[in-house]
């Protein structure tokens, strides 16, 4: 259908976006790779020299590195568990015949639109604060002593905050999927006397499997990059107890001015993200045709 003329025009129309993204992806990444092999500290820029694999070695032997990898995984998995399980149940609840469904939906998705620093500060000060927070008030009401969340359970606290931010996303996508479930099939199963648990396990869950996969993969990409929530609450501490890989690299670059080390960490983060990305591309790509 397309003539040669329109093909040429199409190429011209595609070019700016492709070139911009190509430059944006390739140039900084090559620079990061280059810096990762340099001894380069911003406090001492005159002393820059070739470092070989030293930065990687240094990163790899640093105990904080393993702690940050562990924290990254705990953070991602913890949030995924809460949001997927919670999201499934909330989606099913909203999908029931209820009064005011529209408003319920709006209330449930709202946390997603709260910017990360605001979400974290609200939780830190209004909800989890050991003396003035709502949870402290609740604890006192029941005669228990309030918990100092960020000192005692720093990583758990951050998981709770991030889960609150992402629960709406999971709920909304799972709800969208749930609403395309064939109701006649469901009614048939109901009439044949299939109990609610079996209907959930053999009809609802397989139908939602794809949406659940998408939720897990997309959230993982964003969750690997959690930063602001940590910055405004625990600042990575106590020690490295709530430092994830993103935060560790930020610390190396911005607080220690260690350009080489931060770049090596950045390359490690790319490798980690790529492993996950491969799975996502497959899942999303299948749906393209």
């Amino acid at each position, binding site marked *: 259908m397309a003539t040669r003329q329109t*093909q040429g025009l199409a190429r011209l129309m595609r070019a700016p976006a492709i070139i911009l*993204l190509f430059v*944006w992806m390739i140039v*900084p990444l090559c620079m990061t790779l280059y810096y990762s092999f340099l001894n380069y500290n911003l406090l001492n820029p005159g002393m820059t020299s070739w470092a070989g694999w030293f930065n990687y070695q240094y990163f790899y032997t640093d105990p904080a590195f393993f702690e940050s990898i562990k924290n990254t995984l705990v953070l991602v998995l913890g949030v995924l568990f809460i949001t997927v399980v919670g999201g499934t149940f909330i989606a099913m609840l909203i999908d029931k015949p209820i009064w005011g469904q529209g408003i319920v939906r709006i209330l*449930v998705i709202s946390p997603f639109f709260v910017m990360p620093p605001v979400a974290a500060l609200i939780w830190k000060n209004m909800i989890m604060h050991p003396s003035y927070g709502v949870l402290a008030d609740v604890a006192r009401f029941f005669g228990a002593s309030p918990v100092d969340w960020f000192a005692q359970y720093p990583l758990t606290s951050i998981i709770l905050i991030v889960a609150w931010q992402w629960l709406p996303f999971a709920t909304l996508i799972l709800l969208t999927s749930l609403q395309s479930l064939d109701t006649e099939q469901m009614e048939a199963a109901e009439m044949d006397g299939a109990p609610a648990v079996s209907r959930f396990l053999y009809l609802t869950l397989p139908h939602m499997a794809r949406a659940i996969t998408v939720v897990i993969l997309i959230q993982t990409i964003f969750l690997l990059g959690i930063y602001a929530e940590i910055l405004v609450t625990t600042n990575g501490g106590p020690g490295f107890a709530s430092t994830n890989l993103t935060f560790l690299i930020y610390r190396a670059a911005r607080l220690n001015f260690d350009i080489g080390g931060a770049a090596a960490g950045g390359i490690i983060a790319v490798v980690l993200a790529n492993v996950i990305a491969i799975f996502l591309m497959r899942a*999303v790509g299948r749906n393209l045709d």
Partner: protein
Amino acid sequence: MARAVTRNAKIGWTIAAWFVALLIFFPILYTIITSLKTEQEAIAGFDLLPSFTLESYQTVQSQNNYVRPFLNSVILSVGSTILALIVAIPAAWAMAFSPTKRTKDILMWMLSTKMMPAVAVLVPIYLIFLRTGLMDTRIGLTILLMLINLPIVVWMLYTYFREIPGEILEAARMDGASLRDEILYVLTPMAVPGIASTLLLNIILAWNEAFWTIQLTTTNAAPLSAFIASFSSPQGLFWAKLSAASTMAIAPILILGWFSQKQLVRGLTFGAVK
């Protein structure tokens, strides 16, 4: 079709759903309530009834010059989205209406750029911004946010454009429409809703971006996300003030967000779930 639902079951489900919804919304609600309290009331223990004072809002404005970060947020989010649309509309258009064998590969590659962790390019971007004087400027951050969201913009537009039926174009051509007429009178009106949704979602994403805005601004170009992050080390009594600043930072986007629920699913899943 209609299933017989007993009234009692409906009441039960309604109560359960509202309970969960209010629980999830509570932190936001409580922030709004606290913003209407005085600082003394704010730390006086749990209370859902504020004295409805606007004192904190005035303090935030007079002490911190709230207008500046707010304007920066507007400029950065709207500016970067419009820039992205200017680049993305032709690209998505070409890919949707004259696809080639490689179109799918290009789209997947664009998606893959979104998966590069921001922190991986923190070092070079930071150094580039330092050396070129882009640090703490609106123009630098606008371009950066544009690049970050460009893949999502192209993808969203592509999924919308692809739904415009080709038969309509053929019909228009049969009726003697020129290419210009085709684009102006047939395609554009059908594309506008998709473009509007894309615009909306990307303003939201850019508004809430909090990694680069914190890394690359200090005061001049700092949008609300960076401004609020600076509240992390409190000086003196500040619960009500924090709440007021937070309420103002999230209110516009919360309202925009409520209108874009459906597009949210589509945009963030790259069309994988509709």
